[in-house]
């Protein structure tokens, strides 16, 4: 760490020198506002900006980027990165705090190689705020001043800048000032302290009426508040609040097919949870209405992210307020209104459980303000490349090993068997080209990938055996599943996974197993049934209650016939209506079967899977029969896109279906309002 003082006029020549060595992305003026952009001339640099239209996040997570490219004949590969080291110049403290938060997101669990590479290539030059923007409230969020998370910090004091480096990369930047540096006097440092004091006090165009650490508690009390309906009446669902937010990182994945139809690329695009398409699944079911989408953003920032990562994901930049045409995005206004309505949030004794906390497997991290988060904790775990090396080297290319472990690049698998099983569903048996077994557990899913068409999350329907193959039954509801239908044995598809949680079959030994499946819900639980049957001696009775709309939708008929003949196994079936075929089972919803199952609540574990509407009734009946929520397992479906807890699409309140699910205990999800609605 080094602290020096330079004359204001030195900044331009320093920038010129730096520009000869590295790409600089810096704050510049555009149409009376400010943007981060490639710096073409040192004269264009502005360090007196109020706020930039877009946060610097776009230089780590671009609006659009390639995840892989594919060519005629089915080959595909990870993109070759042409990213070079760059200096991000003029980052305000609140954005520094946001970058540290994004580091935590993209480095946790399965690392995102694209983000991490750019992050490693970046040198961050922060600068303290000289001109407050009209909606900044960083002072309330503890992000008006940061003392970590940057390589170099520039603070203007009079006609000088104090430059402070924290890293080797920062030291290298100071070295570029050459002879121009002076030793700062204690008076200079006092003046810098005064700038910080001014900003802590001053960057408060909106005053939050509670410390940010209290927000998760407030949110836990506010889920059903009428504010979400009221405010969202004038919401355009335009996603502007998302798209300018430095902590909004959700993305969508799309195929970009070239004109010859044989080649193209898979890209990810910045997305926003306010947008109409965000929570839609294949088949068109919309999981969140306009007001629910409006609410979701506030919960993500002030409840779900704190639970998962330990910080309130709002740094007070005020960009959402600037960008919202109807003027409903102001978080401070929303939180203050909620505080008025729920003053008990400030009483520590009544601390309620936060929405979605039930699934947290580790103890929930203590909530920190964004600035405290920037302390050298898990958030900043990046290995800084040697600064000198960075200043000299050209493009840093990912190694082959890097590409191989890219979680967005699927493995190839061959279709070894295909069978149409109903009008809508087809059975597939797949084998990975590498010959390794998939290694999945019952209830997990894979992302099936067709180059040029897209990806779809598909449940694995076979149990975890030693076989090098795995099976799935796919309902045709979208482009991927339709295209899969056109494929034949010998054709190859891409596979990512297995992903998600499993039915914990080995923990259920000694119990009776009750399977309740509705329609295509039999597919994921079939894996569990097979696992139970392969260790039948370890379990009590296996009862399968299988409901479907019509007889012709019946799946695995041959297998059901075999199951029925096994000792200790009972299969009960029902249809909603007897049409399209002979029927010998019950008529009515699947719940009509439950009283016939002879459930002994204390000795039974239930595995439930079906369409959203089924859960409500089945779960209510099981509970009224005396079953405990922790003995009931459900498998939920959402729009899983990335599979590794990054893209945000499959989120149910605070949990990610792709990681925390798809298998949950009912105890985990019964208090999640979005889970079973």
């Amino acid at each position, binding site marked *: 760490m080094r602290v020096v003082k330079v004359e204001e006029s030195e900044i331009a020549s320093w920038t010129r020198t730096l520009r000869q060595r590295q790409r600089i992305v810096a704050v510049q003026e*555009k*149409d*009376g*506002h400010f*943007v981060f*952009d490639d710096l073409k001339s040192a004269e264009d640099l502005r360090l007196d900006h109020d706020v930039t*239209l*877009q946060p610097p996040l776009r230089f780590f997570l671009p*609006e659009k980027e390639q995840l892989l490219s594919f060519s005629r004949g089915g080959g595909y590969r990870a993109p070759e990165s042409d990213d070079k080291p760059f200096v991000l110049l003029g980052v305000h403290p609140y954005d520094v705090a946001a970058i540290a938060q994004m580091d935590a997101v993209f480095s946790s669990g399965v690392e995102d190689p694209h983000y991490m590479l750019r992050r490693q290539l970046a040198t961050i030059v922060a600068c303290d705020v000289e001109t407050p923007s009209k909606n900044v409230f960083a002072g309330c969020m503890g992000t008006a001043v940061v003392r970590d998370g940057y390589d170099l910090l520039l603070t203007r004091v009079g006609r000088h800048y104090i430059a402070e480096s924290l890293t080797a990369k920062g030291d290298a930047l100071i070295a570029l000032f050459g002879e121009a540096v002076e030793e700062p006097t204690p008076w200079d440092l006092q003046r810098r302290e005064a700038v910080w004091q001014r900003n802590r006090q001053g960057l408060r165009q909106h005053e939050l009426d509670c410390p940010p650490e209290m927000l998760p508690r407030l949110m836990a009390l506010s889920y059903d508040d009428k504010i979400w309906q009221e405010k969202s*009446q*004038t*919401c*355009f*669902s*335009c*996603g*502007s609040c998302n*798209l*300018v937010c430095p902590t909004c990182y959700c993305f969508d994945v799309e195929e970009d*097919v070239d*004109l*010859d*139809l044989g080649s193209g690329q898979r890209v990810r695009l*910045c997305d*926003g949870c306010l*947008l*109409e*398409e965000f929570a839609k699944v294949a088949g068109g079911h919309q999981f969140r209405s*306009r007001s629910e989408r409006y609410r979701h953003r506030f919960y993500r920032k002030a409840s779900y992210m704190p639970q998962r990562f330990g910080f309130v994901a709002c740094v007070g930049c005020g960009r959402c307020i600037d*960008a919202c*045409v*109807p*003027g409903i995005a102001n978080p401070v206004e929303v939180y203050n209104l909620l505080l008025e309505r729920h003053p008990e949030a400030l009483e520590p004794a009544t601390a309620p459980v936060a929405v979605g906390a039930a699934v947290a497997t580790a103890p929930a991290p203590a909530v920190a303000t964004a600035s405290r988060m920037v302390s050298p904790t898990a958030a900043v775990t990046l290995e800084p490349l040697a600064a000198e090396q960075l200043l000299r080297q050209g493009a840093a290319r990912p190694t082959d090993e890097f590409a191989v472990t890219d979680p967005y690049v699927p493995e190839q698998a061959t279709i070894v068997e295909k069978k149409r099983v109903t009008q809508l569903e087809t059975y597939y048996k797949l084998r990975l080209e590498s010959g390794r077994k998939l290694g999945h557990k019952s209830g997990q899913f894979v992302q099936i990938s067709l180059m*040029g*068409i897209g990806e779809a999350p598909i449940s694995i329907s076979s149990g975890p055996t030693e076989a090098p193959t795995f099976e799935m039954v796919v309902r045709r509801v*979208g*482009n991927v599943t*339709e*295209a899969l239908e*056109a494929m034949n044995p010998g054709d190859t598809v891409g596979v990512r996974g297995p992903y998600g949680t499993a039915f914990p079959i080995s923990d259920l030994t000694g119990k009776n197993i009750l399977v309740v499946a509705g329609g295509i819900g039999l597919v994921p639980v079939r894996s569990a049934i097979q696992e139970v049957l392969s260790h039948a001696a370890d379990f009590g009775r296996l009862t399968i209650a299988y409901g479907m709309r019509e007889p012709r939708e019946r799946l695995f008929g041959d297998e059901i016939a075999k199951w029925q003949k096994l000792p200790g196994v009972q299969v009960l079936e029902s249809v909603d209506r007897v049409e399209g075929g002979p029927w010998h089972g019950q008529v009515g919803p699947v719940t009509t079967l439950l009283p016939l199952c002879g459930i002994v609540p204390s000795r039974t574990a239930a595995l439930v899977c079906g369409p959203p509407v089924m859960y409500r009734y089945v779960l209510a009946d099981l509970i009224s029969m005396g079953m405990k929520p922790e003995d009931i397992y459900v498998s939920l479906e959402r729009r899983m896109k990335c599979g590794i807890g990054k893209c945000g699409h499959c989120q149910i309140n605070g949990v990610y279906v792709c990681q925390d699910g798809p298998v949950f205990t009912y105890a985990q999800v019964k208090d999640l309002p979005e889970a079973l609605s």
Partner: protein
Amino acid sequence: MKKPRVAIFDFAGCEGCQLQIVNLEEELLSLIEIVDVVEWREGMSEKNPKFDIALIEGSITRPEDEERLRDIRARAKVLVTIGACAGTGGVNKLRNHMDQKVVGRTVYGADADKSFLQVGTVRAIDEVVPVDLQIPGCPIDGREFTRVVRTLVLGGEPHLPEHPVCVECKRANNVCRYEYGEVCLGPITRAGCGARCPSFGMWCFGCRGKVTDPNVDAAHTVMASYGKTVEELEQRLALFGS
């Protein structure tokens, strides 16, 4: 794989959308590799009674148009409209707000009463026959057009953005037109144009029609907070018939 047969038809419009197709130049050649264009007045002289995909430009303004359109619909497996005139009625629809006699006299002068110049209410294609897909815009975006055709050829269901133009303005680092005191239709207009007009300093004219679930009430409500009136908004909306 047999190439799908494509026919392009036009009704009342400026033919600017067809021109966009012609303007694809090299891309057009690649497109012809994957489809068989069997009828296209602006691009070729042949005609063919059989086709799989009908692309329709222009709005319906005369009784004989309706008859012709129904015939095309009956012969097409997939009917796709191209452009604002076919999609929403387009600028032609402005006429519906006026006295038809005045319109006739203004355009045709003394000839306005001649029988073959009698015109009726302007309608979008989907106000006359079922439409499978609309490619919006005035004119259409060439890239979107080729993407839709490619997806159709691949057997997929083409997907148009369901979100508004604001998304693309943010991506383009544009300053919001409301900050300039303009009535911009971006918040309720379907994206896909890359926020072309705002990126060049104009408000969004709404040529791509409304988003899937437009909050028009909100648009009415926010007018006052920007010192604008609902009438100004309605005028803007009327331009492209939505």
